[in-house]
């Protein structure tokens, strides 16, 4: 391999340097019909799952075909997307917030033709490349984080749990038969880079064992005061240990105070907390972000722990499917999952979804916990 220079000269890093220019202006990438009718749209319709029609005040129409993707994608795959866009949608393509693809076409026939084409593209293993769907009262693509593919703190994988889950709820991606949209999100640790705390259904990686302490290396790799300050519960304090006749400056951890958040590890690589048996997933439900009918709401933990069962996480996916199916059967039209649970009562939610209630589901973290306890005698048997 010969090093190919871009023109950058390491001896004179400032020479010809361009910085702080930000993104390109989005206006350069709008398809003509979008550009012409910018801010002048009249209404939209979902023609069939995965196909949207937008009609402008001018009478102009544009059809959108929406397809799911794994958000981790190769350059080969992106080139394939480009080929499709060049062939069908004038060389324009859009990614949605939830990692779906969208292509604009001019007619309903073209949209249906594109839908059929996209649904024909398969990987050698049999998976769809660009399954069309993700509109209306269904499940759309799962937003997720890095997991074991690229992060240092995950308690579970992200791409794998998402693939396994989407396989199980695939029908709800390609159809619109739920009472309301269901947004599933996935984050592989409590940092929630893909924050899932307000999703209809959330898959959240959690650790359950306090950090290990790499005493011999800690003081070399970490600033002890930073590690101490990082702990939200004050579980970490400076300490000394004798090992092999030598004294090391290190930290001690009050284990009963640890809530397994991994903040100390973020500040100090000598405090790893991953563990094959200890790590797994919490399932949260009932959050939403839209203001429609009811207010935005946080997700609630309804299953405190399911073990990591790679590659297909059967307990996780079975539980999600059960919750989704119970909701689909029981909820009213337009009622989001959390609104349904609020209406029937959470005690009823556990009963109907066949989920056990345990002490781990009673909040004990600081003040907000209090607002989740019941301060009334109005409850259901």
């Amino acid at each position, binding site marked *: 391999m010969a090093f190919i220079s871009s023109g950058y000269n390491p001896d004179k890093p400032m020479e010809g340097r361009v910085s702080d220019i930000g993104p390109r202006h989005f206006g350069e990438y709008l398809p003509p019909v979008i550009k012409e009718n910018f801010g002048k749209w009249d209404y939209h319709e979902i023609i069939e799952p995965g196909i949207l029609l937008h009609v402008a005040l001018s009478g102009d129409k544009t059809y959108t075909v929406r397809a799911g993707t794994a958000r981790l994608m190769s*350059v080969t795959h992106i080139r394939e997307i480009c080929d499709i866009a060049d062939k069908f949608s004038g060389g324009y393509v859009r990614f949605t917030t939830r990692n779906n693809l969208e292509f604009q076409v001019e007619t309903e026939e073209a949209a249906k033709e594109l839908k059929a084409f996209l649904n024909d593209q398969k990987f050698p293993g*049999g*998976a769809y490349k660009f399954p069309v769907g993700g509109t209306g009262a269904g499940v759309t693509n799962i937003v997720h984080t890095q997991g074991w593919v690229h992060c240092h703190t995950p308690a579970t994988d992200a791409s794998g749990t998402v693939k396994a889950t989407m396989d199980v709820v695939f029908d709800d991606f390609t159809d619109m038969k739920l009472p309301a949209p269901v947004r599933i999100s996935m984050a592989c640790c409590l940092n929630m880079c893909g924050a899932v705390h*307000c999703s209809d259904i959330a898959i959240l990686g959690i650790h359950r064992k306090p950090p290990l302490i790499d005493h011999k290396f800690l003081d070399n790799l970490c600033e002890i005061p930073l590690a101490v300050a990082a702990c*939200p519960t004050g579980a970490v304090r400076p300490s000394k240990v004798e090992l092999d006749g030598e004294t090391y400056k290190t930290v001690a951890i009050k284990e009963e105070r640890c809530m397994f958040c991994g903040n100390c590890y973020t500040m100090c690589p000598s405090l790893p907390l991953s563990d094959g048996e200890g*790590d797994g997933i919490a399932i949260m439900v009932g959050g939403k972000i839209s*203001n429609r009918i*009811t207010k935005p709401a946080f997700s609630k933990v309804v299953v405190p722990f399911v073990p990591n069962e790679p590659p297909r996480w059967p307990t996780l996916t079975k539980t999600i499917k059960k919750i989704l199916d119970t909701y689909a059967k029981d909820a009213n039209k337009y009622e989001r999952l959390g609104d349904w649970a609020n209406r029937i009562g959470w005690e009823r939610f556990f009963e109907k979804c066949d989920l056990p209630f345990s002490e781990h589901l009673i909040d004990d*973290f600081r003040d907000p916990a209090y607002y989740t306890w019941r301060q009334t005698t109005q409850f259901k048997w």
Partner: protein
Amino acid sequence: MAKHKTPLLDQLESGPWPSFVSDIKQEADARAKNEQGLDYQIPVDCPDDLLGVLEMSYTDGETHWKHGGIVGVFGYGGGVIGRYCDQPQMFPGVAHFHTVRVAQPNGKWYNTELLRNLVKIWDLRGSGLTNMHGATGDIVFLGTTTPQLEEIFWELTHDLEIDLGGSGSNLRTPATCLGMSRCEYACYDSQELCYNLTQEYQDELHRPAFPYKFKFKFDGCPNGCVAAIARSDLSFIGTWKDEIKINQEVVAAYVGGEIAPNAGAHAGRDWGAFDIQKEVVDLCPSKCISYDGKLTIDNKECVRCMHCINTMPRALKIGDERGCSILCGAKAPILDGPQMGSLLVPFIEVNKDDDYQAIKDIVENIWDWWMEEGKNRERIGETMKRLGMAALIDAAGVPVDARQVQEPRHNPYIFWKAEDVEGGWERDINDFRKRHQR
């Protein structure tokens, strides 16, 4: 021929949903074949080794990525996330595997020329694997080595005129819904505001000066398609002040079953005929709609939840006096539990003509306050929780308003200030003793 055996990952190739495993394998093959004859600048087999290390995690149930090191491009504090594999001997292709965040066009519209140019850089200088996109919104280039970072940055800025995104304790890459580009609900131009603020605050984006990360997100309306209210330290959510516009003829068409409600979102199931009383009137959260052959909305009582408009998008339209609400302080649970954005400014005009100065004033006031008062690694939501909403409102320089609270305080522990009370706090004990014996 695969470099590592991946029996567990192979099981993720079946099933309908797009398989990232199949895709990584496809890239591994493409790089091995190298049909374009590229002189790959990082190990050719990094996709293979990524699968290898991932398989190992599937076996162990533990990640094999080390804590990131400090890497980046000259003069920037963010944009690159250092990453090293903890089994470099077994997986040399990913021994150094840093992530590069690249600023996305707002609303995530692309043409294929731009995409092809982006992947061309990444094919040559990176792993050939990406996230399109990261949860914050940037394009994420997944995995390269340190010597390539300046080269990538050079090519991005010189050849494509695109910058890196944010990471670290700075302004993160702002993100927006597609807004006016394709949505009839957009109450302001969320993309243009997002673009403008992104450009205005490039310095804050690239050079960490804050206590912790700071995110802007822009939703064109209360439907919240980018989840601004939940995901951003400052959320800009479109809204309006005047009346919802009603076309009674089209309402009648919905009632008559000529147009499917909710734009056809419920077509997968037979929910029976549309019942405007049950599906719109009764579900209005502020009970301000009535229907007696004609739809009436008591707009003064409307809380602009969007339900009636979402349900009958052809008959009902957002009002004309448009702007946005600004909410502050959303964050995920770390450290102090999750927080939703709290309403700071009920309504502000989104005015391009004066370069959004009113909004920028608020942003800068808030930053000044947070940089002064915030502790290290404290999100602004935590600072406002610690010091109080009133302190934030004061710092932001916006008026106090009943709309900022759900309900007034429960406790009378009011922190009166000396200037709030007649005569101030200064008193004389001797004077007091003249009236009260010891």
